[in-house]
């Protein structure tokens, strides 16, 4: 059923013959110019390392206040889930849900799925339900928006700084690092090498 030597462009449907790439190479479609595939021999290892780093950062980022503000004796601070809670009690369940899903649930699933797939593979085993978890990872990715949340935080802080003194918390720095760790983990996940390894171990 499968014909490994052919590639179909997912944006213009051009049928192409697969060409071997050097490490770090990128194959582009000749007709529409979109990225077809990359070759990252060490990608999966890098992805796993950054995903494990992301777990630690994710826990820290959600356990401590992101920012504290102090305006004429009035103090306040919030964590990410604290903000979701406030919105929930403030009759904004849809906004609370949107924030919770895009900045907490989806990133958590994304990191979890990467580790679930890559850690056993590194230890020479294929975890159960690889196809389902792989599909979950693919479905979750467009909705994981840590980097957008980061920019939102910077805008929030700049806005608050005009009326109060703002102290960035440890969670803010964790979010900055989390953003890079998640991006690096996703970028290193070489789909083709992943399935080749799964196939070899089965």
């Amino acid at each position, binding site marked *: 059923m*499968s*014909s*490994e030597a*052919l590639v*179909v462009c997912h*944006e*213009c*449907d*051009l*049928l*192409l*013959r697969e*060409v071997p*790439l*050097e490490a*770090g*190479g*990128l194959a*582009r*479609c*000749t*007709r*529409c110019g979109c990225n077809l595939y*990359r*070759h990252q021999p060490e990608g999966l290892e890098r992805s796993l390392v950054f995903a494990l780093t992301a777990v630690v950062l994710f826990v820290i980022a959600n356990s401590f206040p992101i*920012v504290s503000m102090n305006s004429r004796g*009035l103090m*306040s*601070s*919030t964590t990410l889930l604290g*903000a*979701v809670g*406030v*919105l929930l009690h*403030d009759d*904004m369940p*849809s*906004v*609370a849900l*949107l*924030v919770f899903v895009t*900045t907490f649930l989806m990133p958590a699933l994304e990191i979890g799925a990467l580790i679930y797939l890559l850690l056993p593979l590194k230890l020479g085993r294929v975890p159960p339900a690889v*196809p389902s978890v*792989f*599909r979950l990872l*693919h479905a979750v990715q*467009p*909705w994981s*928006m840590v980097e*957008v*949340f980061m*920019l*939102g*935080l910077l*805008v*929030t802080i700049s*806005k*608050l700084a005009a009326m109060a003194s703002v102290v960035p918390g440890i969670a803010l720095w964790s979010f900055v690092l989390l953003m890079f760790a998640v991006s690096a983990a996703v970028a290193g996940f070489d*789909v083709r090498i992943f*399935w080749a390894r799964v196939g070899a171990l089965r």
Partner: protein
Amino acid sequence: MTAGTALVTGASAGVLACHTCGLTQRAAPEAHGLTCARCGSSLHFRKPDSISRAWALLIAAYVLIIPANLLPVMQTGSLFGSEKDTILSGVIYLWTSGSQPLAIILFIASIAIPAAKLLSLTFLLVSVQRRSLWAPRERTRLYRVVEAVGRWSMIDVYVAAMLTALVQFGSLMSIRAGSGAIAFGAVVVLTIFAAESFDPRLIWDRAEPAEPAEPANGEKQ
């Protein structure tokens, strides 16, 4: 490297690639209900009902972008009365109060990107329905950009959420997210779904082969 000398599409050759894992597999052109042999995703040559789904989501977004811009996204209550800020008035306030870089970021993320996204998707849908042959490569690139930048519109939702959580000092000063934030969030979500439903291969289905293909070049990143 193309198969053969002329440009052949996957659909005409009975070959398709899984949207999720990329595995190339053979299938009969009229086959239905196929699943990927490797990852189990459903397979199709073209996304099903791409145009009508994208239109439905897009029209819903067009409707909601009106309340998103007219209703307040944030309400600030203090001892001196209450203020309601729409997206635009928030941007104008930032501009006039001396935070021009911030105003530019918010203008691009909350006003320019959603508007450009709606117009671009409309243009892509109309051009595909009119079987346009014009600039398929550029239209594909436009689609790629639309897909990539949509998420950045969420900035305003996050700002409203964090300000609501932080500024809660009862009658002294408190900020609440307004109903405009709900509509705005819905616009962002709807346009992301609309972009996902659109199938860029439809752009090429009508187009002639533009030029003889050269080998896919492995570029060093």
